[in-house]
């Protein structure tokens, strides 16, 4: 019973932190444009919590985030983020479990992976729809990543504080 309450508390904190980030994206970042693109937090939100919580929990968290994104964001297919974000979460979780301990470096590598997957899937879809734009897609991915990358640090701090807070309670 106590363990279940602690689990609920932990994921409520993760959900609260993510909600805060979504508000930040919708309220501020979406209205800013750097280097011709808007900073895009969502792939980071799918990857960074998974580096702290491992592949299974991270994948489930990313799946829920993907569903939410598909409900909120327009896309070429209705389930784009639901398909891609669990992969990003799984990748980030496995990375943190096997190669790099969770932290800034791990978050940075996970962010690269998450952007490569999300934007790569976008490019793949365009190609499948007969509107291939690999070069423009790659350039946009690069710009989007560069503009969003500085936010990896505050996000890692945020999720690490949630992780440490809930781990202390375990």
């Amino acid at each position, binding site marked *: 019973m106590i363990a279940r309450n602690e689990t609920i508390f932990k994921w409520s904190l993760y959900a609260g932190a993510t909600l805060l980030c979504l508000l930040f994206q919708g309220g501020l970042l*979406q209205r800013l444009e750097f280097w011709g693109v808007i900073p895009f937090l969502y792939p980071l939100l799918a990857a960074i919590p998974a580096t702290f919580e491992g592949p299974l929990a991270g994948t489930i968290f990313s799946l829920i985030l993907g569903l939410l994104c598909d409900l909120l964001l*327009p896309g070429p297919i209705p389930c784009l983020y639901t398909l891609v974000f669990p992969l990003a979460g799984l990748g980030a979780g496995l990375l943190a479990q096997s190669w790099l301990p969770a932290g800034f470096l791990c978050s940075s590598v996970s962010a690269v992976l998450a952007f490569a997957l999300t934007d790569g899937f976008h490019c793949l879809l365009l190609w499948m729809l007969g509107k291939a734009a690999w070069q*423009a897609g790659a350039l946009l991915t690069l710009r989007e990543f560069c503009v969003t990358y500085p936010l990896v640090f505050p996000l890692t701090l945020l999720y690490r504080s949630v992780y440490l807070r809930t781990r202390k309670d375990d």
Partner: protein
Amino acid sequence: MKNFLKQHGLWVLFAAAVLSVALAVMSVLSANSSPFANLAGAVVAPFRAGYTAVATWFNDLQNYYKDTTDLQAENAALKQELAKMEEEIRLAKADREENKLLKELLDLTKQRRDLTDFEAAMITEHEVTNWTSSLTLNKGTSLGIEVGDCVIDACGNLVGVIHKAGTNWSTVLTLVDTDTSLGAQVFRTKDLGVAQGDFSLMRKTRLRLDYLPADCALLPGDVVVTSGLNGHYPSGLVIGSVEEVQVDDAGATAYAILEPETDLDALTEVFVVKSFEIVT
């Protein structure tokens, strides 16, 4: 004291009488005040001046307090009046904006009699991802907006098509989005083609007019409008103008790069075409 008055009372009375007479005589003889009166006045004068100064200061203080209180009350009343007037200005501004919008709508209705039912909507959000070109509107299905409805600006230029619609919101995919595809016609040459978004051009706010005959005689600046051939969209809505014409790799068909007529970045309000008559 009693004994003193009994023994010397008469002498005291006498001395007082002599002094009084002397003072009376001196005052009659003197042109100014008597020396005793002068002495008394001179001694009292500084005290009198001090008393007057204190009285003046107190009076000033009282007046200052009264003035301050009056000014504070007046200031509060003026502030209230100012707030009321500012509120009125704000309302007037909102009314003026609404008036402008309604005038534009009236003009549009006069110009385009085939567009039978409009819904004016405000744009609440521009692009939300870097991979789409979309707008979010503040009106939705509760006002009859449906997926697939055309969205135009105040001048009747095409903005995009409703992609998703909720109760009080809807999302528009603009002309330049990769998912947008419309039957189009070059106004001057009557050449038909398909206007569609291209990802490489999307960030430059341009789109393509595909499937043109290879020998088409398009010129930069030619206006391209919706053809309305499939009946999904009204005909004659201005899409944009030709920027350049290119022949595809196979050489069989040509395509043009179009610059949208509407300024997508500057838009704040649009009109959703809920129904229209097909013009043949």
